[in-house]
């Protein structure tokens, strides 16, 4: 495709304008394969203005099947196994451990009091998660930028970023909470490292020849950072955000689970329901917590596509 488009003489290039976008269809379509959450048509319109509809709807339908029907089938199997374990494997006394799904839905979600208390717990957990994540994003990106500016900064800080990640947070949380307040600490710690490492990786992944191009024009480091390194780092930065967000949710819940303080969050409730043997509400809360994780993951995937999807094609190396 490269040859045909390029070899058209200057005068005739306009006729080629129609052909060019159609070639970009292929990578876009392929791109959907690597990111299951992506709607195959989702990225295309921005980059390819006059996309002809030919073959589009059947491909879209195929995409719908693989994106909706297949996961739904897996879900059905999952529910089936759940019923089987709940009714077939567990006896009457053990059933509280895994009540059948409809009971979980009825008591956990459809009971108004239970539902509102869960929603307020969800709200609290969300606030804590996102506040921690936001702080962590700002700090993490700042630290990564600092590291990218000088080797000695990188060498002095990076090992500690690793330590922050590997340290058993649960053990440290009470101490740190004493100084910084419980709510945020564990979330910041959990989500810090993926952001730092991914952002740093992105900042350092810029081609040598791109750097040289900037050097040839005596670009100062801030212009270089702003016009070259930061934009280039965006894809991996968002990757870091997404991983960090997932971890923050887990961090928030685990933290609440062990250090119940103040208003109850999802983790606090998990702990309470476990001790009260309230299987239905326990499972409803567990499902809600995982949905929160999924929502956060999907949100950051969507955000990344909004910001860099137009130019960043992971397949293209």
């Amino acid at each position, binding site marked *: *495709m*490269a*040859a*045909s*488009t*390029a*070899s058209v*003489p*200057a*005068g005739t*290039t*306009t006729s080629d*304008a129609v052909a*060019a*976008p159609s*070639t*970009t269809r292929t*990578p876009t379509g392929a791109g959907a394969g690597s990111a299951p959450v992506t709607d195959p048509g989702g990225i295309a319109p921005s*980059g*390819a203005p006059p996309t002809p509809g030919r073959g589009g709807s059947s491909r879209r339908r195929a995409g719908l099947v693989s994106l909706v029907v297949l996961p739904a089938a897996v879900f059905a199997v999952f529910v089936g196994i759940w019923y089987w374990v709940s009714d077939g494997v567990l006896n009457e006394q053990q059933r509280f451990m895994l009540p059948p799904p409809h009971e979980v839905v009825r008591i956990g979600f459809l009971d108004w009091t239970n539902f509102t208390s869960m929603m307020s717990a969800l709200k609290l957990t969300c606030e804590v998660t996102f506040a921690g994540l936001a702080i962590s994003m700002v700090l993490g990106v700042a630290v990564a930028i600092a590291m990218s500016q000088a080797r000695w900064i990188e060498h002095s800080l990076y090992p500690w970023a690793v330590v922050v990640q590997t340290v058993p947070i649960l053990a440290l949380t009470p101490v740190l909470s004493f100084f910084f307040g419980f709510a945020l600490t564990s979330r910041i710690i959990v989500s810090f490292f993926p952001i730092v490492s991914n952002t740093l990786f992105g900042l350092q992944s810029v*081609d040598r*020849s*791109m750097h*040289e*191009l*900037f*050097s*040839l*024009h*005596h*670009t100062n480091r801030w*212009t270089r950072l702003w*016009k*070259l390194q930061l*934009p*280039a780092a*965006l894809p991996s930065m968002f990757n870091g955000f997404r991983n960090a967000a997932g971890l923050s949710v887990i961090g928030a819940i685990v933290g609440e689970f062990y250090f119940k303080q103040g208003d109850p969050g999802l983790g606090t409730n998990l702990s309470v329901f476990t001790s009260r043997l309230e299987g239905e509400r326990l499972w409803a809360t567990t499902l809600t917590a995982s949905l929160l994780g999924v929502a956060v993951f999907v949100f950051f995937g969507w955000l990344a596509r909004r910001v*860099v999807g*137009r*130019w*960043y*094609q992971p397949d*293209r190396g």
Partner: protein
Amino acid sequence: MTPTDTTTGTSTDTSTGAAASTGSDGPADPGTGTRAGTGGDASAGPGPSNGTHPSPGTAPTVGSGGESVGGVEPAGDGAARTAPALRFTGVSKRFRDGTVALVDTDLTVHPGEFVSIVGPSGCGKSTLLRLASGLDAVTDGTMDVASRNVGYVFQDATLLPWRTVRANVGLLAELEHLSRAERARRVAETISLVGLDGFERHLPHELSGGMRMRASLARSLVLDPSIFLFDEPFGALDEMTRERLNDELLRMFVLRRFAALFITHSVAEAVFLSTRVVVMSGRPGRVKADVPVPFGYPRAPELRYSPEFAALCGQVSAHLRSE
């Protein structure tokens, strides 16, 4: 041929310094001053080149080595005509790990000259360009550049994937702090020049390899450099695209009259483009032969199929092969 260059080189030694000092305000504000000279050349360029028509028959008359340069160069600015645009004198380059890439290399490129370098892989061709551009410093010898307004075209297009063609083409002008209006004017003009009209809003990944290379060329052309360095810019393209881009590069050369130092692996490409083809020996690199190309500009694409052209290619290849 080489002797001719050397003598001109030494005689203008002082004027090189002068040119360098005036040229130094080029990069600071490429919009003004010194490059007016280049602009004058550009308008005058097509004039004299009409005289040297595509017919390769006129060849032998200008075949007297370095003088052919003067023949192509528009008459007028005497100083610009004799002062070398780029000159390596006894240049050696040893890298920190001990690799010797170049030894005692002499090479002069005059304004209006298009010099191609061919040589075995690893003989230091890229190193030569990096020295010329100031990306690396010489270990021994001296390197003079008449102007600091140097264009550098890399082997890959090195476009910023998040910028549209227009924004990519404007990048260097932006880094050189040209005013917004001036930038917009030059970018629009240059995009037309390289034949990318209608693709201004496309992103690099939506372009073919050849079009990306055009954008990369345009990006450097925007600053109207007086010296152009090319490191195998068309090496990754197929034959047809490469020939088309060669034709267009020559069109720009005739129009803009920069001094060019062009690295390639293709002997035919070197001969087709250049006023001189320099053959380098294997590592450590040094200049082994300096073959003047007697054809005038503009050059018709059919030149590639003429017997004179083939003979010259054969001559260069012979130099390449005799290790």
